[in-house]
């Protein structure tokens, strides 16, 4: 226990903003120059000195960069939305568990995602778009509040050409010709194989009721993975804010098999 030999795990590294792409009025995708190589579903802590730090899941990554899709809802995210390409942010991570690629290989995979929940699975979907042979089929079920809230439009258009994709909004608008209704209403429209693997990501209530729909369709809890949202404040299993029962969401999560997640009671 020699502290001056211990690296400082709280110390963030500077990262340059390469590009900022607005997805909606309140969701921007930031491309940041970094060597961080996250697994699907992991998150980073992004900060602006003097403002604060926030846990954000990685929406995509490539050589020398990661992308974070950030909704303007709080103090840090509001400050991030003021930035311009060339500005500097600070990063540490990646943290947490990701989605288990080995568990999906050779199986039908269904990704049900709501709102900003699409961000942590975007990289995964794009990977399978390039490696469709690794799965016995990929089905997408994507939901947003209104047509104006749809994220990753160009990606979704491409996915629609590659995989059976259900895109729905909770409330339609004039000119919207697509589906209207909650994600939960469309689960039964997906032809499910007995051994299908399911990913459910989104707001807490969406996760709860969507998982329930899959279980009604004879899917076992062990076949389902969810990503939980908690206040992952330090990302290091120290600060205690994200703890549920004996689990630290920042360490063992945010991705959990549902057979584990169902026993986590706040």
């Amino acid at each position, binding site marked *: 226990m020699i502290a*001056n030999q211990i690296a400082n795990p709280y110390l963030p590294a500077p990262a340059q903003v390469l590009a900022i792409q607005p997805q909606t009025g309140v969701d921007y995708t930031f491309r940041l120059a970094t060597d961080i190589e996250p697994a699907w579903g992991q998150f980073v802590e992004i900060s602006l000195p003097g403002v604060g730090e926030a846990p954000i899941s990685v929406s995509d990554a490539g050589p020398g960069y990661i992308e974070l899709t950030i909704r303007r809802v709080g103090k840090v995210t509001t400050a991030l939305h003021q930035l311009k390409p060339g500005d500097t942010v600070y990063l540490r991570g990646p943290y947490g568990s990701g989605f288990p690629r080995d568990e999906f290989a050779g199986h039908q995979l269904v990704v049900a995602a709501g709102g900003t929940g699409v961000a942590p699975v975007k990289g995964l979907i794009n990977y399978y778009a390039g490696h469709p042979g690794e799965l016995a089929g990929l089905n997408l079920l994507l939901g947003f509040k209104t047509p104006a809230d749809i994220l990753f439009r160009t990606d979704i258009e491409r996915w629609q050409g590659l995989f059976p994709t259900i895109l729905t909004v909770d409330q339609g608008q004039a000119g919207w010709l697509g589906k209207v209704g909650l994600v939960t209403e469309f689960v039964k429209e997906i032809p499910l194989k007995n051994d299908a693997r399911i990913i459910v990501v989104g707001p807490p209530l969406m996760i709860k009721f969507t998982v329930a729909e899959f279980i009604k369709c004879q899917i076992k809890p062990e076949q389902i993975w969810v990503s939980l949202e*908690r206040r992952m404040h330090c990302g290091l299993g120290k600060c205690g804010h994200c703890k549920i029962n004996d689990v630290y969401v920042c360490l063992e999560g945010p991705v959990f098999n549902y057979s584990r997640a169902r026993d986590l009671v706040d």
Partner: protein
Amino acid sequence: MGYKLTPAGLAALLDELVTSRRVFGPVRYAGKGRLAGTDLITYGPVKGLADVVWDARTTFSPKEVFFPVKESLFYFSHGEITESALKASEILETVVFLRACDLNAVTRLDKIFLENGPAADNYYARRRQHTHFVLMECQESFPGCFCVSMGTNRATGHQAALRPEGGYYLLQALAEPWLSLGERYGQPADVEPVWVQKNSLTVKVPDRVDTSLFQHELWREYSSRCIACGRCTLSCPTCSCFSVQDIFYRDNPERGERRRVWASCQIDGFTDMAGGHKVREDRGERMRFKVLHKIDDFRRRFGINMCVGCGRCEEVCPEYISFARCVNTLSQLMNGGAGA
């Protein structure tokens, strides 16, 4: 090695010790107690033997010696980040006089800060590595203590153990500098530490707590009684939660710092996320979260209970909420009883 010291001998020993080390122990702040006309007994710097309070439990625990209430992590200045440095006085070897329960509590804090997660907490480690312990032996326990139930009436990891007895002080020296100090200031003697064998309060920790009990009505009592003041967690020797906040200096917005401060699962805002989502809004749910962390969750993760039975949380609670009674009720419920 054991030594017998006269009060004058121990006083001289401490006078030498404080010339080269920082020494902390239970000290009395006259008139600073919570109620009019009472003293506050808490951890503070010890300058000599007269400062050390032997006959009372401290309101707060010794953890703040190496886990300060507020700590700067780093400073920002014009795009540069500089890690905070300890003052010269803070890297002196530090000696803490504490009880067996509190020494056991240090091993709980070590689990979180040094072992949990992918990396050790360097801010904790840099103070902790210079901190050494002298056990103040309890011959009998204070009201509300239940260390025997928690198995924390005995301790290890200290450099020396000390107790007043028969007008003398008996010192068991286990490491330097205590061996040579004992040699110089005392007479060799057979000294075996004494441990509290029995508390007036017995707590039965349930072997397991089913999640079915999470919705039990026993928690509802706390929904109305608890006022979410957080005293129980701030006085707890094992509570380790903190929040990180950034500030910038009002007279120079280009400069600022990131700091951490103690946080409490009992206080509003602990789980707040951007966008407004929060969990455990009900205070009964927070009580359940805290109690199960102390006697179930932590043990499942690290193999030992977090609670060390010091009794402080109950003593400081303005609503007289008894942690011990809650745990005993849980045990009865797990054994099929109706609860207290």
